[in-house]
């Protein structure tokens, strides 16, 4: 029995749990990208930095709260600061829309123009964030770090392998599930949500039906900003906050959105988990799992690692290229870039 349970727990600890958590983070990020693509019809390259912006505000607020001695007990103080982070991110995105994107909508610019404009905004946010909080790494997690320590798990079960579950991991998955349910309820059941889907589906007919494009666009930015700030904070709590890392998240998030089908919220979620599990599974060293499962004389000398973690971005990239070549619409038949 234990010869099977030990490798299973090992895989759960190093593949299943990290994959689920990372997948949830990517899914929330990719949802924002896919919504903006569905409604505004361009790839928003500033989305990674939008996440960084929301996280930065949340970190600054967390520090302020901490200096006042406020805490949430076992939960991270950042949760209290998050609403301010979301709020300012919404204001920031609405301001960029007002000052930049609206102009290009008025002149009916091509999607590539919007994309270039979003790269400009990305660089601007890049600089702004480094100017305010610096390029270095920030760790802002407080409260209880672990919900269950690996050591406790071993003692509880008597197994050799432990399963550690961190508070930030549970938080990520719970928040992601709640947000996704809320988002789908909004898109499927409310009049405004349906109008957004209609606008994404057929812009001309939506206008003919009296749907106000500017209102739809505004709501899209608000949702994208909220999702970005939350995804960024969850990622930062789980790992750490570093502006450059958030910029790098663009690639796996875009890969997730495209694999699932651009413009399809369900695709962004499935795509997020596909990318996350591909990364985790291909970069995990299976040596220890092999020790449990393989006979002694078959034990390899190497780490049994398919790819070094340094190459994890190559995985998103390869998946992205293959999907664009083989099935450009993605799994759920989204739009083609």
């Amino acid at each position: 029995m234990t010869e099977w349970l030990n490798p299973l727990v090992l895989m759960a600890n190093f593949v299943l749990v990290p994959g689920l958590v990372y997948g949830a983070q990517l899914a929330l990020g990719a949802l924002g990208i896919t919504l903006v693509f569905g409604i505004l019809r361009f790839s928003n390259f500033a989305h990674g930095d939008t996440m960084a912006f929301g996280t930065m505000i949340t970190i600054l607020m967390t520090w302020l709260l901490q200096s006042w001695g406020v805490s949430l007990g076992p939960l991270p103080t950042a949760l209290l600061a998050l609403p301010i982070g979301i709020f300012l991110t919404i204001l920031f995105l609405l301001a960029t829309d007002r000052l930049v994107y609206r102009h290009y909508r008025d002149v009916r610019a091509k999607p590539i123009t919007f994309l270039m404009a979003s790269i400009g905004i990305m660089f601007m946010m890049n600089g702004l964030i480094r100017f305010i909080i610096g390029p270095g790494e920030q760790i802002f997690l407080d409260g209880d770090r672990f919900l269950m320590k690996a050591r406790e798990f071993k003692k509880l079960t008597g197994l050799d392998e432990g399963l550690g579950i961190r508070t930030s991991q549970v938080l990520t998955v719970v928040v992601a599930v709640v947000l996704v349910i809320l988002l789908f309820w909004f898109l499927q059941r409310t009049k405004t949500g349906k109008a957004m889907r209609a606008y994404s589906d057929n812009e001309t007919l939506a206008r003919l039906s009296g749907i106000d494009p500017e209102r739809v666009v505004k709501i899209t930015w608000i949702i994208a900003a909220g999702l970005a700030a939350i995804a960024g904070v969850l990622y930062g709590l789980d790992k750490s906050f570093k502006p450059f890392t958030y910029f790098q998240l663009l690639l796996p998030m875009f890969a997730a959105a495209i694999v699932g089908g651009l413009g399809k919220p369900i695709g962004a979620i499935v795509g997020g988990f596909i990318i996350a599990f591909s990364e985790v599974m291909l970069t995990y060293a299976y040596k220890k799992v092999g020790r449990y499962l393989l006979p002694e004389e078959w034990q390899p000398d190497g780490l049994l690692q398919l790819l070094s973690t340094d190459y994890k971005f190559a995985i998103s990239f390869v998946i992205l290229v293959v999907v664009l070549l083989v099935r450009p619409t993605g799994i759920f038949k989204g739009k083609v870039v």
Partner: protein
Amino acid sequence: MLLSGENMTGGYGGADILKSCSIGVERGEIAVIVGPNGAGKSTAMKALLGMLDLREGSVRLDGKDISSLSPQARIAEGIGFVPQTENVFTGMTVEENLEMGAYLRGDDIAETIEQIYGLFPILKEKRRQAAGELSGGQRQQVAVGRAMMTRPSVLMLDEPTAGVSPIVMDELFDRIIEVRNTGVAVLMVEQNARQALEIADRGYVLVTGENRFTDTGEALLADAEVRKSFLGG
């Protein structure tokens, strides 16, 4: 007349497509615009809806000049419009398509939806299915249903039978007659001129953006010159 465009002249910037063209439709009747390709049939309809800037002429709805209103405002005033292509939300269910048609309405739409289902029973059966999964004829019914959700006094259809089989065409025309019988004014552009004129109370033959013949559908079908030039003998 309920809806009328008088001496409409204009185009999409550049040369005029419509030259002093007049089109109108009365309550409870079907008016059909026919003519050769490039005659400006669809353009005339778009001018009535306000999707085209007119240099001259005016559009009146129920006696009121609506020439300066946007298409959305004209729809709010009671014009329903079914575009020729991409006239349904393919990723949304039949019922959601109808709901979107009623987007501007603030009141209860359940009754109107039931009326549409009464008119197009197949839609009730397929209400939970995505509109993009339906056959061409069923899709056109969704498109007409969507446009009727605002309870328009005038329904304009741009080539409703384009690309459907003759059997489906006959069925669609039967449905359009039923729509007319509810008291709605129906104006449509048609390629299938003969069949369309057969159900038309009023017919307009346009050539290069001008009115060539205007009469009842019956009279146009009987007119030797119209038959020879536009209906293939």
